[in-house]
């Protein structure tokens, strides 16, 4: 009788604990892509295939770290990440994908060993406010932003996964020394740091900051929400690392107990319907061979994507964070 309260406590805790089921229930997706963007797509997948889905949303790097900590006992079946570095970080936990699936996307946007593939492309750009930056002043290379004339005018999101993956890519293409020197020059230019890409786009559009380093699609989204924008995207060309094209992609965990559902999900992401969604709703580049990007964007082929092996990015992710910290930006 006396221990009734204590017993009730224990029962309540245990009962709620049992809610977390195991075994071959729903398809569990760890999504580094935000709920706002991909939830409608996932709902459509369930509607079409009848496969029940549970999604854990988070930052791509964070979820990669989570997968590494969970190891082979993870509940996740699919990892859907917004950058190749996060996918590469967990590639030991990913199974090889069927060749026919891999062949649907260009070779540059998938893992050499076929453990993950890109489903949509995003381009690093410089967003700028034409009232504050004259078109004739636009830098030809992201390295030109090291020039002191840009002091106090640059917005960056140093904690953002895309920025970190971009720095990792710079290490890969230009070496550590040059990357650190660039980061230090940016730091000397007293950049304004933001928690993410969206606030940068907001601030540049409002004229609070002249320019910012972001992914290309944030501006298009703001234009949709606002019905227009002052700010514009500047695409770095000629193979400049500032114009890096990075795929968001997916892979299947080795320990999955719903391999068919997982495979169906990847196929769905590469279906014309989903590719159209990426193109028209999230304003990314569809990567399925033969599909077309939004007419408002320069065609992917016109962007001279830098020739780096995306599979190597993962190993450089923490190094990139170290350099960003060392330069005093984090």
């Amino acid at each position, binding site marked *: 009788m006396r221990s009734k309260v*204590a017993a009730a406590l224990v029962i309540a805790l245990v009962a*709620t*604990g049992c809610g977390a089921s195991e075994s071959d229930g729903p398809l569990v997706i760890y999504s580094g892509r935000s*709920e*706002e963007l991909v939830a409608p797509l996932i709902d459509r997948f369930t509607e079409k295939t009848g496969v029940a889905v549970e999604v854990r949303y988070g930052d791509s790097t964070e979820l990669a*770290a989570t997968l590494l900590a969970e190891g082979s006992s993870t509940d996740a079946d699919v990892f859907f990440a917004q950058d190749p570095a996060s996918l590469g970080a967990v590639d030991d936990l990913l199974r090889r994908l069927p060749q026919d699936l891999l062949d649907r996307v260009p070779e540059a946007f998938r893992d050499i060993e076929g453990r993950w593939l890109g489903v949509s492309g995003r381009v690093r750009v410089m967003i700028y406010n034409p009232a504050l930056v004259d078109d004739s002043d636009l830098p030809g290379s992201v390295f030109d932003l090291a020039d002191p004339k840009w002091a106090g005018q640059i917005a960056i999101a140093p*904690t953002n996964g895309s920025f970190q993956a971009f720095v990792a890519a710079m290490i890969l293409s230009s070496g550590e020394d040059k990357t650190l020197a660039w980061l230090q020059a940016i730091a000397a230019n007293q950049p304004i740091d933001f928690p*993410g890409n969206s606030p940068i786009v907001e601030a540049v559009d409002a004229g609070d900051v002249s320019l910012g380093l972001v992914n290309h699609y944030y501006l298009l989204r703001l234009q949709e*929400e606002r019905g227009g924008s002052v700010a514009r995207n500047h695409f770095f060309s000629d193979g400049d690392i500032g114009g890096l094209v990075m795929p968001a992609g997916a892979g299947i965990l080795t320990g999955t107990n719903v391999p068919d559902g997982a495979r169906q999900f990847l196929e769905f992401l590469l279906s014309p319907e989903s590719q159209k969604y990426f193109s028209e709703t999230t304003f990314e580049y569809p990567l399925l061979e033969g599909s077309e990007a939004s007419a408002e964007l320069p065609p992917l082929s016109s962007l001279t994507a830098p020739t780096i092996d995306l599979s190597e990015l993962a190993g450089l992710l923490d190094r990139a*964070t170290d350099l960003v910290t060392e330069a005093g930006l984090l």
Partner: protein
Amino acid sequence: MTATVPILAPPPRTTSRQGPPGRWWWVVALLAVLPGLLPPVVLVAQVVTGGAVRTVPISRLLELLWQTGGLVWAVTLAAGLVGLATAWLTTATDLQGRRIWSTLVTLPLVIPSYVGALTLLGATGARGILSEVTGWFGWGPIPTPIGFFGAFVVLTVYSIPLVHLTVVPVLRRLDPALEDAARGLGAPRWRVFRTVTLPQLRPPLAAAGLLVALYAVSDFGAVSLLRYDTFTRAIYAQYQGRLDRRPAMTLAVVLIVVALTVLWMERRTRGRAAYHRSKTSRPRTPVALTRGGRVGGTALLALLVVAGLGLPIAVIGSWLARGVGLGLEIGSIWSEAARSVTVSVISATIAALAAIPVAITTVRYRSRISSSIDTAMWSSYALPHITVGLALVAFSLAYARSWYQSLALLIVGYVAMFLPQAAGSAQSVLLQVSPQLEEASLSLGRSRWRTLTAITIPLMARGLAVGAALVFLTVMKELPATLLLRPTGYETLAVRIWSTTAEGFYTRASAAALLLLTVSALPLYLLISRDLHD
């Protein structure tokens, strides 16, 4: 969050030798506070065994200590001064509408700091609502207050209610006889306040200072959105941006040391003071304000209400209106709201139940064990939420795999952090109840269990209800621990606001924020009616 530290003079005797339900209940109380001890132990163990100590450069630690410390000092000092002023204006003076002001000033309590910060960002800058207003007068836009200043403003505005709610009940019960005597002896009004009133307010001010300082140490949302680099922001950046989790854990251990230092400092300054009022005391005569005092006082109160409540609601409302006008989707918020309410109700209920043995043990059976339990409990209250999240994730991954990412673990985390709110509230009520009532029941032949359920618990009921309301309110708003601990797919309103803001979907963020405020209104009402209108 509010006056959970017992301050008022208790009845002559509060401890008991034979009251219900028996001395051995300290075991149950210990079980209740145990989860709160887990986080520091886990983090220290992980840092020591994982060789994590050297993953963070010492210069970085010093920088974070300086910046976090500076913010905490400034916010505590400013909120303490302003909160004291609002409490005094609405309790001790003849200010018009003081009762309504007193309620209005506490309402910002429902607004999470990250919503406050978000709306500050939305109100300023070239596109901000406030800048539009200044534009009508031909003035330039208000610059966005980022960095230290922005974080300072937001945290101060949202912690003033904590000071107000803690000081008002004490101020109301102060014996006016002392002040009257001083005035009768010819002391000017300011000197009476400084030498008679203020010293009596030292205990509640110290308690309020502790609450504010811990709030500032633990805050994650506002400093992140306003880009001021403190420990919590750095911990999340490391957690989110790195595959190696050791640097985040190392920073978390240092942050826990900071928080416990704050707690220790408060214990040192508070002392053991208790003030009694004379039995025949008259109600206090309100201080007659001068014309300038009336205008200034009303202006201060109005400014606080506009900044803490009017502005957020205006910004949220305008975002929502704009979004709906453009035909944007609000997206799902009802299932998020249902989840928020579910975890908040479960956590509040468990915390209130667990508060019973803790309050009884610590109030009725004073011993070394019970005071250790009390200390342990308050220490867990001091833990910054992000460190609790980090620790429980690491703990469940390593030792309790079946609890990992479970709703149960999330609730354990909430209860570990917020049990002190329920227990503190129960303690202060129980302190006012004489143990003679329970002893009489026992001597009349009722069993201990029966006495507990028929006498003690009903007498504590109001304290438990208020404590549960407080826990509900806090869980609804909680962000960093929820981000780390929520089960897969378990998005709450707080998480929703955070993720939609990060992605720039302000229409959706504002709909979720509005719903969060609405749901929080009822428990807030319960709280306010206790502390302000006894």
